[in-house]
């Protein structure tokens, strides 16, 4: 049996199902890989050795008993540390939750357990999902497996690095303004933000409730589809959960034909400030789609220029409220409880010590934007811009089946390059934010290495809400064509760690 960590998720599930390798062996192989490289990459905050081996052993037992195994049984998965797992430490990358063990499973985890996926550990992230580089984690940076001096993207940088570094074939991240797609782009793997409401948010520790959505990371589009299908679906515990059939994303991946598909290149998402190398690889991929039979055109979504400002009003406002519960009273960090301080003082001291700079910035911004006298000008206006962006998408989708853009304007930037400049950091989300605001589905897949720095470039596909299957159809077609061109999947070119 070759290196089990180099298999795709589908291949892993196949060897486990056939008995070629035990689930325990598969898990051990990945634990060894983590041991070997995670000191350098730091994708993981917590490796659940016992939990993973127990789950793996369980899969082997089921197999031995002749029980039916799901499509992903025995496949290791890295879980962003923003989703609750009963009894397992969950920090959201923050000091304020150091040591906290949730007393309940998120629905995503419940579904993964039901699918016999082996959750191998919790991954690093920007604190409370706020950031584009994972540098805002209170537990140290995660490094990009392609170049350890560079960021892996954020806020789901740990999950993305884990998959790109072969520490697990699958990972779960969350995407509020691009936090799955942008890390996927800069680490050369596939990342998907499902339609808002497609995946339950119960147990997903909230950053911006009307934007957050959990989704899959994988090294292939097919793997991502398998994971997407495993976690999507209506949940009565989440009032914003869509109560309709999940589009068959796996089938779409297997019928990857783009002939006649109308592809729209969004004019506003490809301009000044984009790396030349990124624009080049993007443009080549668009041409390739045309070669495959897609009909390509350009479309203008004029209000997309206002997406960033709207996002940086809506998300901080919602988060200022969502993060109010971290007050030292019921769980988490408590500072200053010495008999001399009142509850109000302990709350303020704890939050000051427990939250990092970016989180504080956004809480302050959001509190201000919602405050008396300012609501209409800030939050209220941003919600209206959101309507305009949704209308832009609707208009564009009248004439195109999918819209495309680069996933992010640059390749992975060096660690420390943007940490002093919040506004510059926010620019990484330029392309991804519109889909969060409108609630539609979007995917990033690798479309090449930049000729300038040899680092991965991501190609973004956007589809209307509830049409997630289109992402997989286009993604699979493009991936196959690109793999043909490259001779092998792009990830094979990543440096050995």
């Amino acid at each position, binding site marked *: 049996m070759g290196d089990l960590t180099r298999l795709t998720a589908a291949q892993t599930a196949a060897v486990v199902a056939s008995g070629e390798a035990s689930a325990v062996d598969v898990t051990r192989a990945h634990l060894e890989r983590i041991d070997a490289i995670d000191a350098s990459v730091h994708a993981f905050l917590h490796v659940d050795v016992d939990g993973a081996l127990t789950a793996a052993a369980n899969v082997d037992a089921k197999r031995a008993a002749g029980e039916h195994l799901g499509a992903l049984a025995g496949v290791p998965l890295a879980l962003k540390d923003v989703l609750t797992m009963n009894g397992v430490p969950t920090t959201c990358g923050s000091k304020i939750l150091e040591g906290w063990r949730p007393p309940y499973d998120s629905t995503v985890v419940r579904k993964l357990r039901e699918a016999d996926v082996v959750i191998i550990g919790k991954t690093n992230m920007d604190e409370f999902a706020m950031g584009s580089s994972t540098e805002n984690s209170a537990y140290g940076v995660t490094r990009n497996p392609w170049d350890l001096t560079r960021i892996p993207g954020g806020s789901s940088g740990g999950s993305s690095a884990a998959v790109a570094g072969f520490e697990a074939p699958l990972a779960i991240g969350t995407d509020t303004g691009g936090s799955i797609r942008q890390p996927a782009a800069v680490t050369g793997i596939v990342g998907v933000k499902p339609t808002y409401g497609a995946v339950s948010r119960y147990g997903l520790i909230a950053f911006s409730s009307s934007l957050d959505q959990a989704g899959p990371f994988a090294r292939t589009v097919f793997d991502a589809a398998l994971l997407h299908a495993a976690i999507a679906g209506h949940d009565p515990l989440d009032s914003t959960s869509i109560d309709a059939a999940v589009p068959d994303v796996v089938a779409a991946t297997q019928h990857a034909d783009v002939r006649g598909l109308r592809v729209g290149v969004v004019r506003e998402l490809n301009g000044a400030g984009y790396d030349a190398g990124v624009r080049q690889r993007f443009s080549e991929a668009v041409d390739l789609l045309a070669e495959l039979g897609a009909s390509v055109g350009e479309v203008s979504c004029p209000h997309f220029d206002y997406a960033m400002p709207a996002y940086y009003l809506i998300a901080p406002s919602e988060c200022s409220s969502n993060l109010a519960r971290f007050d030292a*009273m019921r769980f*988490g960090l408590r500072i200053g*409880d010495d008999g001399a301080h009142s509850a109000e003082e302990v709350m303020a001291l704890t*939050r000051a010590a427990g939250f990092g700079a970016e989180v504080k910035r956004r809480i302050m911004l959001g509190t201000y934007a919602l405050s008396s006298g300012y609501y209409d000008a800030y939050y209220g206006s941003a919600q209206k*811009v959101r309507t305009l962006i949704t209308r832009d998408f609707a208009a564009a989708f009248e004439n195109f089946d999918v819209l495309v853009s680069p996933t992010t304007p640059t390749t992975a930037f060096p660690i420390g390059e943007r940490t002093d400049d919040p506004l510059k950091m926010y620019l990484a989300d330029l392309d991804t934010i519109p889909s969060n605001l409108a609630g539609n589905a979007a995917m990033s897949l690798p479309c090449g290495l930049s000729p300038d720095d040899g680092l991965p470039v991501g190609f973004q596909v956007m589809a209307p809400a509830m049409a997630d299957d289109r992402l997989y159809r286009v993604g699979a077609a493009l991936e196959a064509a690109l793999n043909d061109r490259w001779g092998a999947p792009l990830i094979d070119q990543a440096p050995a760690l």
Partner: protein
Amino acid sequence: MANIDRDQLLHVARLARLELREEEVERLGAQLNDILAAVSKVSELDLSDVPPTSHSVPLTNVFRADVVAPSLSPEAALSGAPAAEDQRFRVPRMLDEE
């Protein structure tokens, strides 16, 4: 759009229960004003006839039946508590009557 001055900043910090150090106050103030200037771009648009979107998912009337479901055990409920006494969450003395 208004600039946040020091007093407003401190007021916002109080509303958000964040105890800021002096150097934080200065730095945050500057950064917030930069960000506010950037996000104020939304006011360039004519939004007078545009309805706001609070939900991108077009659902209404999502309910659950009035049926009792199992609660957490008190041990589980209190498992994360920084302090507990008599099966209750122990918190420092409160200043304000609510």
